[in-house]
């Protein structure tokens, strides 16, 4: 269970120059229950990555509170793992060593680590590339390793910042299904930031739309009641088309769309 209560955030102003920094996020409130898959969409620069950093605890809100499992978030924790935009694997570690790093942080003994790490790699179907360095893997493969590494932390809350951007549709569907299964069966909360409306609509129990300058929640959608099962055939469904139309109306003129 995750809840954000009236979050405000601005980055600290630089000592010289552009004196008072403006709010990046303003009055953000949202909740996500265990087992829920939430998506966040919005124009570039509206503060989506910042919001995930706040939830992860890497940044602290200027005002407001973030509660995870009923306790205030005061710093990073393995129970809320963030997959950064641009994967950020450790280039000096092989695929499997990247995952073993997390298992080490979890306190697993050295003997167990490799076997367990292989299991996480199998979940993203990359066990054959266990000993490859990130530079030897394609962008999509690196993203999948990043996801496997995050799963290895066994977090309660998984924060994904555009994690599928270099995946083809088949690989994307496979991972999304896997993540949905993990969320619902193991009671995890997944928050997905994406630019892809199909993805957002397909996975989201709820979709939050942020607007820019300052980032606010402009609208909330609830596609879970209506959506068809297949991501591939989503484009044709009338529910999705209606969603798409509303989102683009908000993006072009939030004030008008509100009325």
């Amino acid at each position, binding site marked *: 269970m995750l809840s954000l209560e009236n979050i405000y955030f601005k980055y600290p102003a630089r000592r010289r120059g552009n004196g008072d920094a403006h709010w990046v996020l303003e009055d953000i409130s949202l909740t996500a229950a265990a087992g829920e898959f939430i998506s966040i969409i919005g124009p570039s620069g509206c503060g989506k990555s910042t919001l995930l950093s706040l939830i992860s605890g890497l940044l602290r809100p200027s005002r407001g509170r973030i509660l995870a499992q009923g306790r205030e978030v005061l710093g990073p924790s393995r129970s809320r793992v963030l997959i950064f935009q641009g994967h*950020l694997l450790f280039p*000096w*570690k092989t695929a499997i060593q990247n995952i073993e790093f*997390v298992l080490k942080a979890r306190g697993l003994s050295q003997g167990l680590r490799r076997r367990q790490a292989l299991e996480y790699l199998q979940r993203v179907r990359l066990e054959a590339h266990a000993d490859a360095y990130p530079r030897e893997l394609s962008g999509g493969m690196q993203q999948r390793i990043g996801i496997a590494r995050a799963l290895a932390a066994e977090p309660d809350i998984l924060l994904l910042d555009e994690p599928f951007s270099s995946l083809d549709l088949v690989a994307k569907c496979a991972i999304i299904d896997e993540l949905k299964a993990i969320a619902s069966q193991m009671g995890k909360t997944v928050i997905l930031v994406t630019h892809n409306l199909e993805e957002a609509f397909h996975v989201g129990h709820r979709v939050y739309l942020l607007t820019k300058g300052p980032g606010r929640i402009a609208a909330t959608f609830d596609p879970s009641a209506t959506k068809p099962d297949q991501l591939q055939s989503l484009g044709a469904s009338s529910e999705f088309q209606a969603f798409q139309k509303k989102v683009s109306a908000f993006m072009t003129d939030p004030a008008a769309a509100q009325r």
Partner: protein
Amino acid sequence: MNLLRRTLAVLAPFGLALLVWAGLSATGRINAFILPAPGAVLRALIQGLCSGELLSATALSLWRVGCGFGISVVTAVPLGIALGSSHRLRGLLDPLLKFVRPIPPIAWLPLAILWFGIGNGPSYFLTMVASFFPILTSTMTGVENVSQQHLAVARCFGATRASILWDIVIPSSLPMMISGIRTGFGFAWMAVVAAEMIATRSGLGYLIYTSQDLLRTDRVLVGMLVIGMIGLLVDTLIVHLKDRWIHWV
């Protein structure tokens, strides 16, 4: 075939230099005291090798540099890591380091002789001083420039401080550390020759210095050749190790 071509490519410039040198001597216009012919230097080299004098001088110089340089690696690397990761410590020590760094190693020699007397002491000290700052500075820079995002990822996963040091900070600053170590060795190797000229009665530096007094320019050149050769060998070795250790880039 490939290896042969590579070896030739390395040797070619040496061959060219040798040719020019031999050509100059062959004109007979240059006094052999100023520049002895390659043949004379080769004879002196063989003589030095046979008498064992050259080997023992080389071994002594290597031993001295090994000690001083070794001390400097085991102190400068940890200190560089500490300074690179702590703003406070850096703020505290940086002015002092910036003040000491520009003093050339050779300027320490009189003091080193006073402190340690004639013998191995000044050589150890001088090679240490010479290699300390390049290693310290590049380790520090390497650690300072560890990606903040990689550190954030590690914190996000709840990694311990020891694991962050061992799994993130050290590997990502390793290329900088090694390049500092490489520069450091070069400086130490120069320093030991200088120290031996003045503060000891043995080693390659001493051999060069005394050969000049005896008007044995051929032996001076032999000493210089050996110094250059060893510098080249160690440098190649370090580059080779670097390529083996840093295979992820």
